[in-house]
């Protein structure tokens, strides 16, 4: 049944019966002779101009209100509006595209989000001490604030709506002309597949940890685990009363993986409350982090030339001490040397080598000999290369908790760009009270998608070509669930443009079929109403924002907001 809906044949006859204007649009695409037919047809309505009043508006559902969903909404709106303007401007025969009719008179986008709040990883992923990166929220909000500037477009927010659970994807496809999946990779992680990964307490994914310190309502259970790992009594002589809110945790944390997420979590752990007090880190999180953690190691299998981090995040670590965070940055000279294979040298020189060369220089400038004197800083972040974690081992005094990360020294083998870490047999044991696995997020199919051929479980992405799902359907995809969990916020711009191009192409070359139901927004409202879904609309979201910036909630004037940590409380705030 579901499959039938998803792979719905595009029945031109049906559409002609429903909306004759659309079918004429279809004719227009067939060629210039047909186009003149279109003109004859349209001129009966309103002189030579295309009568937009009789044309339907394009209905679009976007699943996921993170950067991918917002950029797709933004560019699809502007592309459609531009296209409408072109089609209605009086015939400029010099430019063929300007006189081609377009089947729609406007665009209505419904941005559907599982959480009551939009912005996805900008709100729950970007580190709280990167407020300038979160400025992009204003750009996204502008889509809603500018409502009414053009009567030809509208956008509605449907927060707290879980596509797959509260409304089947097939239903969305049936209601809307176009459905764009932009739900990201927030549901799962790549795995190390080493002993201890699933069995020991104190092994978390960086994804969970990041979501916790950003106040994600579904990850607040992580706090008590982190607290136990960082502040467990070392012995009976340590008294809980000795731990003040600025105490530095003696714990050792090992972060496995070397992307920007790994560097983010290392920095947040090292900074602790003093370094994050003026950010929107929830107070409950600061109370767990306290004065920060004394030792954080960020471990990667390959060398520094192959790291996935970018220089901005790396440079921040090197500057922590200078900026008064009481954190030294440690990188070992010999590990940089070990990673400098001939192939690595080629990678630095090759195309795209500029960022890597600058990272190489930054690390070389900060590198120390193994026995070199470190700074007076009480905390340190160490970045380690060419170490492959092979086992997470239990703590001596508590076998259910993690205590060590066993690593094998690696060396790089292979051609430039394809170097792999190969074990040398030399082992190193890193003490660890908390292990954060930061080797990548993993996309998951939406409920109801597994049985279809749309999800590639090997790459954990939705199968697509430039954002268009294969076959005859009205499904598109953008963002991480399209390309995999890599890149920065800006990457979604190119990605969204790519998908929007495919959507526009689809609207020009296929007869857009708004499914058997095709009521768009009205149909969604009916469905959600019938299923008693507590939708949070944009104005209600703004009430949540108001509640979060209420001065009675804030620690200080500098704190941007104190996030609400429970969905139920968000819904209460939304109703106020």
């Amino acid at each position: 049944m579901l499959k039938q809906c998803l792979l719905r044949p595009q029945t031109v006859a049906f559409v002609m019966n429903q909306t004759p204007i659309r079918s004429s649009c279809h004719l227009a695409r067939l060629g210039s002779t047909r186009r003149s037919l279109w003109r004859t047809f349209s001129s009966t309505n309103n002189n030579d101009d295309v009568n937009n009043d009789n044309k339907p508006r394009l209905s679009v559902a976007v699943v996921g209100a993170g950067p991918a969903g917002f950029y797709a909404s933004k560019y699809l709106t502007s592309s459609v509006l531009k296209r409408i303007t072109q089609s209605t401007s009086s015939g400029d025969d010099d430019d063929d595209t300007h006189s081609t009719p377009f089947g729609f008179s406007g665009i209505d986008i419904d941005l559907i989000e599982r959480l009551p709040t939009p912005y996805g990883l900008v709100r729950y992923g970007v580190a709280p001490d990167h407020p300038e990166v979160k400025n992009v929220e204003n750009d996204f909000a502008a889509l809603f604030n500018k409502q009414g500037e053009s009567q030809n477009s509208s956008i509605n927010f449907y927060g707290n709506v879980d596509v797959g659970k509260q409304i089947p994807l097939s239903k969305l496809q049936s209601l809307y002309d176009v459905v764009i999946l932009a739900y990201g990779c927030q549901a799962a992680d790549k795995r190390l597949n080493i002993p201890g990964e699933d069995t020991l307490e104190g092994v978390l994914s960086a994804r969970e940890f990041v979501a916790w310190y950003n106040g994600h309502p579904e990850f607040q259970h992580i706090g008590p685990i982190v607290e136990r790992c960082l502040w467990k009594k070392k012995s009976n002589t340590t008294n809980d009363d000795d731990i003040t809110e600025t105490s530095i945790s003696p714990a050792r944390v090992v972060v496995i993986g070397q992307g920007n997420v790994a560097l983010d979590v290392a920095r947040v752990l090292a900074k602790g409350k003093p370094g994050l007090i003026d950010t929107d880190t929830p107070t409950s999180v600061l109370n767990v982090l306290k004065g920060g953690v004394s030792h954080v190691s960020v471990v990667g299998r390959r060398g520094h030339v192959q790291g996935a981090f970018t220089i901005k995040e790396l440079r921040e670590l090197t500057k922590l001490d200078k900026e008064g965070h009481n954190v030294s940055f440690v990188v070992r000279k010999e590990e940089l040397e070990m990673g400098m294979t001939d192939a690595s040298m080629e990678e630095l020189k090759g195309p795209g080598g500029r960022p890597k060369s600058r990272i190489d220089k930054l690390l070389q400038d900060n590198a120390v000999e193994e026995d070199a004197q470190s700074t007076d800083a009480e905390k340190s972040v160490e970045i380690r290369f060419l170490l492959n974690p092979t086992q997470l081992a239990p703590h001596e005094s508590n076998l259910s908790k993690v205590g060590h990360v066993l690593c094998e020294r690696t060396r790089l083998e292979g051609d430039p760009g394809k170097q792999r870490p190969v074990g040398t047999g030399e082992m190193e044991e890193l003490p660890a009270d908390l292990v954060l696995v930061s080797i990548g997020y993993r996309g998951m199919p939406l409920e109801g998608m597994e049985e279809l051929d749309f999800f590639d479980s090997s790459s954990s992405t939705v199968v697509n070509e430039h954002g268009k799902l294969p076959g005859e359907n009205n499904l598109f995809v953008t963002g991480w669930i399209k390309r995999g969990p890599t890149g920065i916020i800006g990457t979604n711009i190119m990605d969204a443009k790519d998908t929007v191009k495919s959507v526009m192409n689809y609207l020009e070359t296929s007869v857009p079929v708004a499914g058997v139901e095709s009521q768009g927004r009205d149909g969604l409202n009916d469905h959600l109403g019938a299923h008693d879904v507590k939708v949070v609309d944009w104005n209600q979201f703004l009430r949540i924002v108001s509640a979060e910036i209420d001065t009675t909630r804030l620690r200080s004037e500098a704190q941007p907001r104190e996030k609400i940590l429970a969905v139920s409380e968000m819904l209460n705030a939304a109703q106020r």
Partner: protein
Amino acid sequence: MLPRGVISAARAAQIGCKRSGFKLSSVFANTCVSSQTLGNNKQIRWHGDGPGPDAPTVQLTFVNPDDSETKISARVGETLLQSAHRTGVEMEGACEGVCACSTCHVILEQDMYDDLLDKMEDEALSEDEEDMLDMAFGLEQTSRLGCQITVTEGMDGAVISLPKATRNFYVDGHKPTPH
């Protein structure tokens, strides 16, 4: 201390004068004077969001990713990002012009690039800008961030290219492969 990337009127004058055949207009001279009158090197702001409509303008041509051209009147004293947003040139500014993203990446003509560089401290881009350019798509030798360039009279007639749309948008050279 100037905000990063904001070029003082005095500097701007040097840049402008250095360009061959460029004449310092009287309006621009006034800008210099008023800057000095303020007693500091701060960029003159009208409504908090760049210079007002009375500001002198220069003609700039933006080459869009699809090779079409958009000619605009840019106000002297605003950033290229502000010019683009004010005139509808499709340039993102995700971080709102504070050099924390690379979405306002532009590619300059060699002359303009060199002139701007000559006038910068140490004749080099700021570390922050270089770091952000490392994440930009379609990086060229003359790449800059639009938010870090202040429009001067010397830029009249300049051609500024937006990076070409590419379907290879993996910033780290990553190629998706099955795991």
